[in-house]
C-alpha cells in the first residue's frame, strides 16, 4: 500500500516567517502534486512536479521533487495570512495512475 506522510501536521507561524512542509513515502511516484484546500471547499492544484530533482517556483512558493521521486517539499518564503489553509501532497501511482493523497499539513499564518 502506498502511503504519503506529511510533516508537520500542524503549523502556526507569524506573518513574514519562512516554513517548509515535507511529504515522504517509501514508494516511487510517477509525479507529484501539491494542493491547497480552504474550509468548505475542494482542494485546488498549486503545482505538478514530474522529474526527480525538479524544482518549481511560484512566487513565494518553492516546490521540490526528490531525486528518487519518493518525497517532496514545499517551502514558503515570507508567509502571509492568505497562505492559511490545508496543504496536501498527492502522488500519482505508477501503473494505475490514481492519486494517493498525503495526510495533510494545516497551516495558520497570524497577522
Amino acid at each position: 500500500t502506498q502511503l504519503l506522510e506529511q510533516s508537520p501536521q500542524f503549523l502556526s507561524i507569524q506573518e513574514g516567517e519562512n516554513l517548509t512542509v515535507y511529504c515522504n513515502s517509501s514508494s516511487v511516484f510517477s509525479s507529484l502534486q501539491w494542493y491547497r484546500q480552504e474550509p468548505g471547499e475542494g482542494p485546488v492544484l498549486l503545482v505538478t512536479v514530474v522529474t526527480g530533482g525538479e524544482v518549481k517556483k511560484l512566487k513565494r512558493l518553492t516546490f521540490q521533487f526528490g531525486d528518487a521521486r519518493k518525497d517532496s517539499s514545499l517551502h514558503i518564503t515570507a508567509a502571509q495570512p492568505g497562505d492559511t489553509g490545508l496543504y496536501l501532497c498527492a502522488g500519482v501511482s505508477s501503473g494505475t495512475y490514481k492519486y494517493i493523497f498525503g495526510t495533510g499539513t494545516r497551516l495558520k499564518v497570524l497577522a
Partner: protein
Amino acid sequence: GAGVSQSPSNKVTEKGKDVELRCDPISGHTALYWYRQSLGQGLEFLIYFQGNSAPDKSGLPSDRFSAERTGGSVSTLTIQRTQQEDSAVYLCASSLGFGPSGYEQYFGPGTRLTVT
C-alpha cells in the same frame, strides 16, 4: 464555465439507511474520482472512472459502497446501510485524462454526510 458540482451539499441520515451522492463533472473530462475526507485530514481514495475502462474500485472500504458513472458523465456514489463511521465529507473530482505526468484534478465542494 461550470466547475464540478455535487449534491446534496449536506446530508444527515439515520444509521442503517441508504444514501446517494451525486457528482456532475466538468464537461469533456474523461476521468472522475471519488474521495472521502474525515475532519481536517487528507483524502482517502475510493474509486475512479476513466473513459470506458473498468473503474478502479480498490479504495472502496466495504461492499456497502458502490459507484456508477452513466454515459461517461454524471456519477453516483451509493452507501448502503450507513454506519456512523461513514460520516465524512465526500469529494468528487474530474480531470481531462490520466497518466504518469498527472492531470489537474478539479474538485467539487463536497457532500458532508452525517450518520446519526
